[in-house]
């Protein structure tokens, strides 16, 4: 996805003449953009806090600024993101490169949505694959204001052949009537695998790709809560503060529905080597569906 991100950025660089990319010099995420548009590429050897400041300054002067950096590092500048970018609604697009637990378990960050959700005026995006990333990035650069987007470092599994993506509107990947599986990012692929497996048990599961975590698509959520009466939320994130929390907060007000959460319980960065260890696989979703079907 990281390569697709770089390529899309170059294409969009041709479209938007005011697009700037600001990066840490020692670890460049999108070198392809630097090669094509050196005059609009800023690389500085400074902490992420410095990056946020420079990006904010460029945005104040009317630029569209993309700041790609690793998710964990981005969280270290939370206060500045809130005060400098969120409160003042600057046109800065933060891109968190998420390292999957399979590649590098020490720098995986499973708290980014929780941190970002509380920031005012921000939009949070988490595309499922490279195809969706392309649409999302186009949409993201089309809107004014701060955006946080999680991009997976590895290529990952393909979910879409072709997709239309609109900010704040969830994609229905697979329709069903017995249970709704709400997923985001990589977990959309696992949810599809789970839906196929559930078919063997005679359960018809809908898979919804909530690529926008904030603002949440409440219409689709309530529609499927009414239609199925049971929901499972799957995300590669801590169960506290992420998509699951957001869904629960909406449901409790609008249409209380039995819901199960598949996510990271406690992550301390050691003793865990794969997504199985974290309980983030198709079989975990299947188990959660069975649990929630019992209480429906």
């Amino acid at each position, binding site marked *: 996805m990281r390569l697709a991100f770089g390529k899309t950025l170059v294409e969009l660089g041709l479209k938007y003449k005011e697009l700037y990319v600001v990066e840490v010099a020692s670890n460049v995420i999108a070198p392809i953009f630097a090669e094509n548009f050196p005059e609009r590429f800023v690389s500085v050897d400074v902490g992420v806090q410095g990056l946020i*400041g420079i990006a904010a300054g460029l945005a104040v*002067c009317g630029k569209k600024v993309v700041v790609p950096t690793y998710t964990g590092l981005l969280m270290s500048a939370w206060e500045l993101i809130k005060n400098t970018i969120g409160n003042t609604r600057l046109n800065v697009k933060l891109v968190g490169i998420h390292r999957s637990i399979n590649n590098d378990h020490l720098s995986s960050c499973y708290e980014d949505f929780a941190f970002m959700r509380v920031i005012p005026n921000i939009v949070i995006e988490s595309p499922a694959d490279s195809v969706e990333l392309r649409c999302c990035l186009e949409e993201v650069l089309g809107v004014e204001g701060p955006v946080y987007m999680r991009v997976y470092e590895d290529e990952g599994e393909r979910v879409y052949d072709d997709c239309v993506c609109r900010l704040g509107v969830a994609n229905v990947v697979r329709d069903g009537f017995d249970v709704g599986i709400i997923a985001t990012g990589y977990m959309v692929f696992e949810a599809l695998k789970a839906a196929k497996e559930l078919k063997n048990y005679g359960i018809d599961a809908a898979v919804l790709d909530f690529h926008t975590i904030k603002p949440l698509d409440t219409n689709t959520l309530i529609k499927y809560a009414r239609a199925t009466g049971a929901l499972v939320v799957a995300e590669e994130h801590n169960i506290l503060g992420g998509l699951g929390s957001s869904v629960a907060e909406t449901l409790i007000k609008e249409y209380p529905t039995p819901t199960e959460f598949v996510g990271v319980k406690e992550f301390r960065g050691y003793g865990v080597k794969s997504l199985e260890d974290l309980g983030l696989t198709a079989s975990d979703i299947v188990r959660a569906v069975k649990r929630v079907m019992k209480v429906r």
Partner: protein
Amino acid sequence: METPPISSLGVSSVDVLRGVLRRGFNENQLIILRELCSYDYRSLTHALRSISRKYGIPLSTLKTNTKILKELGIIEINKGKTPKITQTGKVVLELINVRPINNVGLDYRVVKGLSEKIRLARDYIRKTITESYVGYSEDSLSVMDVLITLYLYRGYGVGDRGLSLRDKLVVSRKYVNPTLYTALTVVGLVPDDGVLSFKGFEELIQKYSEVGIPGIDFISQSLSHGLLVGCGMALALKRDGIPAKVYVVGGSEDLIDERLWDAVSIASRLGLDNLVLITVGDGRLVGDPILRWCISGWHVVSVEGRNPTELLRALNEVDTVRSPSVIAIYTGNNKEVLTKEYELSTYDKVLYE
């Protein structure tokens, strides 16, 4: 009729000659001459743009007048080089009594206008703070002079976020809402409805996160983050080829934060010569900031006390250097400052000295 030799002219005759010569120049030409003999501008364009900004004279008027001065043989202009006064020009300037700004002090009208505005602002803020029993006069007054001087000196327009040719202003300081409100009212950027109160400040603060306060491009809410934002703005202006400056007004408390020093090193690495940091502090500084600035390749100007004339001189000086600059203003002990603030007469004396 016999003409007496020039050497035999008396003092009164020189005065007559001076008057005649002076009438040959208009106000704008005199301003151009005084500016050119005071500072080393990079090029004619740089000189004319700076003069235009400083005095609010249209660029086309300045160009016409410069052409006349060149034809008269008073200044010499070579493409891409510093415009200079010719030897003959120097004699003429001596005769009509035009001397470099640094030697004779700043234009009397500029300083007088400034002092009146500052006095008005001080009256406003003292009244508001006394009536509402809230607010800190120390904090409020600490950056007042700097803001008003900058506004009047640089000729700020109404703030807009898009690109424009005017200079940018970043305020990297918390708890200065009353000061901002008063300064903006005094210079006419915020309508003065006669009801100055803290409610007004609150409303202004409610607004700024949405649309931006007129005349201020950015207010940093995080400590010392203003300079980093200023770096970004200066970079944007430089890459777009806009000859405007970015002024960051901050307090000395920012100097203890390492993020400020990050910004200092970034600015010199990116060669941001259009960035000016103005720090206002009471002199109780941790470490040796001046040394650190110098090591990083910044141009440092120290200004003692709160004398607007000194500040204007410092602003003139940093206008001509080719590196990021810092104007460090030392206000002395807080207690002493407070006492002085309320003695307006003392203040005025300092101003006109």
